[in-house]
């Protein structure tokens, strides 16, 4: 029983990492209807910027704040310069461009900062906490809380503000939005900026756990994709629920199903996702599309 609880807690801690990255993917998808493969590398780059600022003497929270501004401005500029020319092109074109950005960012980070593992200061205490026989760290709780907080902020932005309405409208009905006076193209750039900010926050949370190096997001982004799709690629709530459940399922499969062990837990977890999608093609929280015939 104690081990079960421990595994669930470990799974939630890992799952919250998937969740925070999945949120960023969902944001881009909601504004452009494409997946941004460079999302993880953008988050990694932002994390390096925060690390560099911190190394140069800025307190960690100030470094975070400044990095978030840089991440936002950088991503908006990136959208204007690199994505804008292919905005109207086929989704595949944009996907390939983001793949290009993926390799470029990875190479740039390696060139500037090298590949040696770096410790990233944790914004939360890493001291162990025990509840009964279950041990975890405040850091684990911190990641979960921040993911939920980000989710809440996104929800408020999209549902309760005019800007959120404009963002949603330009993703769903670009033509009509343009007629209604919304500057659709700028909304896309804004979407990139927001996603980049969420990615940067995710990077700050993840880096103390997986350690900072140019490839730190590559192990995570695959799971984040899976979590986002499982939750319904358009739903921020789905991304968080998808991420957390993926984390717990992976931990439990590895610990309790002997023949699966750690070798097969990834294929099995993905098989579960495929089955979920067969039953609910739009994902757990996605909108089921009804087509009139």
């Amino acid at each position, binding site marked *: 029983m104690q081990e079960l609880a421990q595994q669930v807690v470990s799974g939630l801690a890992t799952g919250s990492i998937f969740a925070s990255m999945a949120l960023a993917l969902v944001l881009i998808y909601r504004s452009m209807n494409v997946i941004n493969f460079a999302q993880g590398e953008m988050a990694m780059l932002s994390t390096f910027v925060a690390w560099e600022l911190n190394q140069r003497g800025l307190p960690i929270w100030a470094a975070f704040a400044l990095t978030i501004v840089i991440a936002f401005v950088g991503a908006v500029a990136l959208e204007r310069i690199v994505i804008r020319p292919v905005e109207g092109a086929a989704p595949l074109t944009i996907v390939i461009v983001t793949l290009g950005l993926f390799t470029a960012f990875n190479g740039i980070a390696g060139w500037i900062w090298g590949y*040696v593992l770096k410790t990233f200061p944790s914004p939360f205490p890493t001291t162990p906490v025990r509840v009964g026989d279950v041990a975890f760290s405040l850091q684990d709780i911190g990641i979960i809380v921040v993911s939920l907080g980000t989710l809440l902020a996104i929800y408020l932005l999209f549902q309760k503000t005019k800007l959120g309405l404009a963002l949603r409208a330009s993703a769903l009905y670009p033509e009509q939005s343009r007629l209604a006076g919304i500057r659709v193209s700028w909304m896309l750039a804004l979407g990139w900026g927001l996603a980049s900010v969420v990615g940067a926050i995710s990077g700050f949370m993840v880096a103390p756990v997986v350690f900072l190096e*140019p490839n730190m997001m590559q*192990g995570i982004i695959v799971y984040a994709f899976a979590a986002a799709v499982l939750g319904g690629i358009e739903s921020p709530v789905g991304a968080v629920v998808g991420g957390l459940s993926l984390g717990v399922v992976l931990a439990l499969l590895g610990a309790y199903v002997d023949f699966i062990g*750690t070798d097969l837990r990834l294929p099995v977890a993905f098989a579960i996702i495929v089955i979920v999608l067969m039953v609910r093609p739009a994902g757990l929280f996605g909108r089921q599309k009804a087509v009139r015939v």
Partner: protein
Amino acid sequence: MSIRRFTIIALTAILALAAGAVLTVPAASQAVTGVTATEIVIGGTHPYSGPASAYSSIGKGAQAYFAYVNDKGGVAGRKITYKDLDDAYNPPQSLQLVKQLVEQDKVFAIFNSLGTPVNTVLRPYLNEKQVPQLFVATGATTWGRDASKFPWTIGWQPDYEAESLIYAKNVLAHEPSAKIAVLYQNDDYGQDYLKGLQNGLGAKASMIVKTASYETTDPDVKAQVASLKASGADTFFIFATPKFATQALVAAAQLSWKTKVYLNSVSNSQVVMKAATTQGGPAATTGVVSVIYLKDPTDPRYANDSGLALYKQIMAKYVPGGDVNDQFYLYGMGAAFTFVDALQKAGKDLTREKVMQAAIHLHETDNPFVIPGVIVQTSPDDRFPIRQEQLAQYDGTRWGLIGSLMTARR
């Protein structure tokens, strides 16, 4: 005659002349592939990009040592040109690059290619072509063990199984009632370590109460460490690469697992130990046991060591901006030292056969980069250049030596 036709004829003539010029060069020297009176061209691959790129410092370290040797006049008047290419730790890509090095660039030998999967793919090709595959940067046991099938291949660093045998000896001697849990990477590298530990414990292999593996695609190893702790073990073996080893050390501390920890040498650099201490507190690393065979650039014990002075001097001159504390540079220089040693032994009339013979008749007591007492040594029956290692325990800031040098096998 049209202009176009004239152009074609002219171009053909130029091409023919150029081809003739190219053909005459090797005919004139008539020597060993990749060797001229003034140059030795060798090749290799390291991951300069991709997931394993932390190891690229090894290639850069070797390159720097060759530059240093060249500036001092080279080997028997020949400068070493090391064409070290980026394979991104991808075996098929590495094979393609090595074929290009052998067939187009006509290299004399392949030196220090990195990675077990990479070298496993290169080995049949290089042996078929009879090109020396020297001092590969991997500790798999097969390089030394399977020489009868692949005589043109040799490793350098201590092999993983041997390292585990040393740990097993130590456990049997000092902790005979230990209950052991093992975390290992689920591939040849991790399994070599595990096998070595099981073999070393022999009849007492049941001391291992639980094993858990991870895949390199896993984001972290928290769940594995939690289930290993739940087994009730009091001794924790970590057979993992730096990133996962760091996570495992931190996870054990955060789970308040009071356990003795053994950490494989692949991950005992100060970079890892410092990261784990910062993240998991002193409890994460204090008392951890590992083995060492290379000098640690950060160790005050070697403050006046001439080998490390040389290392730092080479770093300053040839790798400006490189992190001196990154031990992978030193590893690269150590392997390059042995290569230069083998070249010198092979003599002025260099051939591939002679350098291979030299590589299996090493007796190097003066490699400045390995810890004092370690002899880099081979014979035709023993193709494991480094076999001696020193048990060491981490005190929270640095490694303290335990006992004397140990030799694992034979």
